[in-house]
């Protein structure tokens, strides 16, 4: 047992003890758990519901900072999830579809949008008994969640999420009411600067533990509504929640690429600065809240609504102060968090406007860039097979290495594709279409078409490996030796093709024509391997060493492996033939066709 497991076991034991000894604590903790579950369900529902819609809106409405700010406010206010908005923003930043400055604008907006949550809880959540309609919401939500259409499913998840959210608040309120009869938490209230700092710290801690500023705010509001937390301390807790929420973003940013890290940095800077401003200007802010409350006819002792107003006000103040500094913040973050070598490797290296001037330089630049794309795709394909690039390239006995390796490489293929390949692919397509508008010889144009085809085939290979990986990840570590061995054979089939074609990417061939002919050998060998696997699967199924579900998965995945192999080989062939189109025609005539390949069996 390592120290992490020990700490977790300790925390769980403490929690179990607290739940066992205190009924009130159990009620509040259950409320928090139900609330957090509701947040998850709500986020999940919106994720299904958006289905690309949010991404389309994001692409079209974030070309200026005010628009990106507006997008952040509106989307977070509707979905009540700043983390969902942050995740989509990070993915757009990583793919180079958004500049950092606009991404920061969205994060500022999301911080403002999230303040609507406090209003929702302070008005509807605290003033009404929510269980009356939280329970019907849950029932309808669950029923809709069982439906087939995606939209209905999404509505169901959103309804259930809201139901859980309100039910959680009700539990928290009741928990605090029960506490009143047992312990008066106001005895622990603190005043002055000490109280401000201690309760800000508590707000940070609560948000870090619960990973949700909404949960801290709901808890604070419940405590405030039942009189267990003083208004002064509640303000400090709200400030703490604002700082605490950046820890969640920072943890998320650690696993992301440099764009994600910069955005998490911006989030941290904004929230810390806003919290510092709120702490320094706490008294003027309180006066402003009182003044605005009087103006809006809010009762003097309606502290829950006043807390929501304070939350909105100090976040607005933060935006007002930080917005003029947004471009400085972006350049400072780019300076503090420079791009790593591997990330700069995902930028186009050879395509530049100067190379477009002549057909020869344009073809050479595109050819080199496609080699570069192949190199990047190689890493993704290798990791997709749970292998390291060096293992495929240099290992003496690849078969033994694969059979003995059970290491799982956790990657999100979609994300790394966007980070490492999509940008290159888009740049190649843009460059080729730009070059096509100028005069070129027929062979030069054909060469460009072949290069474009080569790049698209490699992208296809990545998609096939993504499908292959789903079952592979499970079966490569399965206890059933037969299925494990067959999946390792699939890995070997693709890895061997990668190894052989990689020699070509490194320029290790005498001439393009003989290299093209050699691709036939690799293709036929992969086909023979596939056919022998099909025969083995039938035998294994007959001998009951694998079940029919395993056999079906294996045959489907064998088809994915073959499609991956075909795409790699077709891409490499297109790339090699693009060097000299005239010579390539002669070589292509020699290439063993499918019919010819079919005759070769061993």
């Amino acid at each position, binding site marked *: 047992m390592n120290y992490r497991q020990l700490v977790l076991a300790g925390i769980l034991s403490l929690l179990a003890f607290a739940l066992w000894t205190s009924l009130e604590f159990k009620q509040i903790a259950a409320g928090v758990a139900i609330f957090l579950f509701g947040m998850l369900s709500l986020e999940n529902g919106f994720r299904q519901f958006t289905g690309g819609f949010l991404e389309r809106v994001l692409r079209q409405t974030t070309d200026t900072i005010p628009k990106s700010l507006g997008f952040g406010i509106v989307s977070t206010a509707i979905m009540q999830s700043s983390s969902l908005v942050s995740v989509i923003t990070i993915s757009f930043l990583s793919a180079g579809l958004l500049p950092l400055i606009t991404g920061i604008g969205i994060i500022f907006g999301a911080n403002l949008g999230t303040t609507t949550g406090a209003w929702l809880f302070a008005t509807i959540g605290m003033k009404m008994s929510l269980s009356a309609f939280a329970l019907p919401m849950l029932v309808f939500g669950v029923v809709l969640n069982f439906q087939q259409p995606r939209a209905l499913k999404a509505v169901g998840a959103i309804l259930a999420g809201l139901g859980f959210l309100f039910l959680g608040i009700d539990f928290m309120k009741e928990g605090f009411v029960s506490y009143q009869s047992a312990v008066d938490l106001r005895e622990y209230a603190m005043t002055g600067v000490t109280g401000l700092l201690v309760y800000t710290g508590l707000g940070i801690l609560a948000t870090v533990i619960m990973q949700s500023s909404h949960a801290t705010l709901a808890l604070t509001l419940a405590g405030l509504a039942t009189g267990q937390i003083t208004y002064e301390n509640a303000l400090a807790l709200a400030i703490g929640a604002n700082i605490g929420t950046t820890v969640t973003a920072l943890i998320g940013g650690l696993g992301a690429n440099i764009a994600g890290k910069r955005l998490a940095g911006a989030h941290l800077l904004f929230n810390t600065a806003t919290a510092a401003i709120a702490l320094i200007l706490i008294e003027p802010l309180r006066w402003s809240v009182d003044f605005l409350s009087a103006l809006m006819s809010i009762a003097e002792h309606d502290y829950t609504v006043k807390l929501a107003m304070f939350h909105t006000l100090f976040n607005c103040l933060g935006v007002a102060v930080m917005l003029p500094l947004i471009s400085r913040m972006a350049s400072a973050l780019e300076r503090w968090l420079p791009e790593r070598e591997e990330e700069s490797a995902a930028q186009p290296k050879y395509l530049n406007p100067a190379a477009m001037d002549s057909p020869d330089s344009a073809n050479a630049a595109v050819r080199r860039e496609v080699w570069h794309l192949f190199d990047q795709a190689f890493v993704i394909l290798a990791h997709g097979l749970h292998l390291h690039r060096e293992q495929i390239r240099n290992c003496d006995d690849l078969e033994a290495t694969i059979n003995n390796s059970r290491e799982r490489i956790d990657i999100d293929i979609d994300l790394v594709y966007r980070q490492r390949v999509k940008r290159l692919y888009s740049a190649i397509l843009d460059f080729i279409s730009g070059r096509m508008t100028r005069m070129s010889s027929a062979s030069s144009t054909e060469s460009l078409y072949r290069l474009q085809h080569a790049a698209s085939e490699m992208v296809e290979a990545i998609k096939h490996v993504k499908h292959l990986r789903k079952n592979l990840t499970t079966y490569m570590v399965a206890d059933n030796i037969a299925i494990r061995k067959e999946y390792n054979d699939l890995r070997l089939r693709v890895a061997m093709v990668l190894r052989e074609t990689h020699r070509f990417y490194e320029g290790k061939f*005498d001439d393009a*024509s003989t290299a093209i*002919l050699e691709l036939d050998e690799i293709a036929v060998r992969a086909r023979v391997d596939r056919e022998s696997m099909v025969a083995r699967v039938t035998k294994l199924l007959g001998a009951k060493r694998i079940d029919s579900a395993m056999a079906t998965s294996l045959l489907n995945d064998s088809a994915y492996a073959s499609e991956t192999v075909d795409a790699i080989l077709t891409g490499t062939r297109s790339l090699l033939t693009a060097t000299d189109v005239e010579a390539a025609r002669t070589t292509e005539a*020699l290439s*063993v066709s499918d019919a010819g390949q079919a005759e070769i069996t*061993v």
Partner: protein
Amino acid sequence: MGFKDLVATLDDVLRKRDKGKSLKRKELKRLEQALKKKRAKYLKRLYSGSAEETPSQIEVRLRVVEAQLAKLRELRAEASL
């Protein structure tokens, strides 16, 4: 365009066609040499054994090279017509 110009153009076209054919023949000859060399290499590997590949894998390679050589001979026969 006069008759002389027409003849000159035709002459040009024919010369280019011949040049193309001879280039193709040259390329085919070079490829035949390369393929024969490769076949010899695989045969040697098949009889003496290889640490990298099994005999059946080498045999697959050999069959592909032989199929390519057969196609090449057909093409050379067409080119010499």
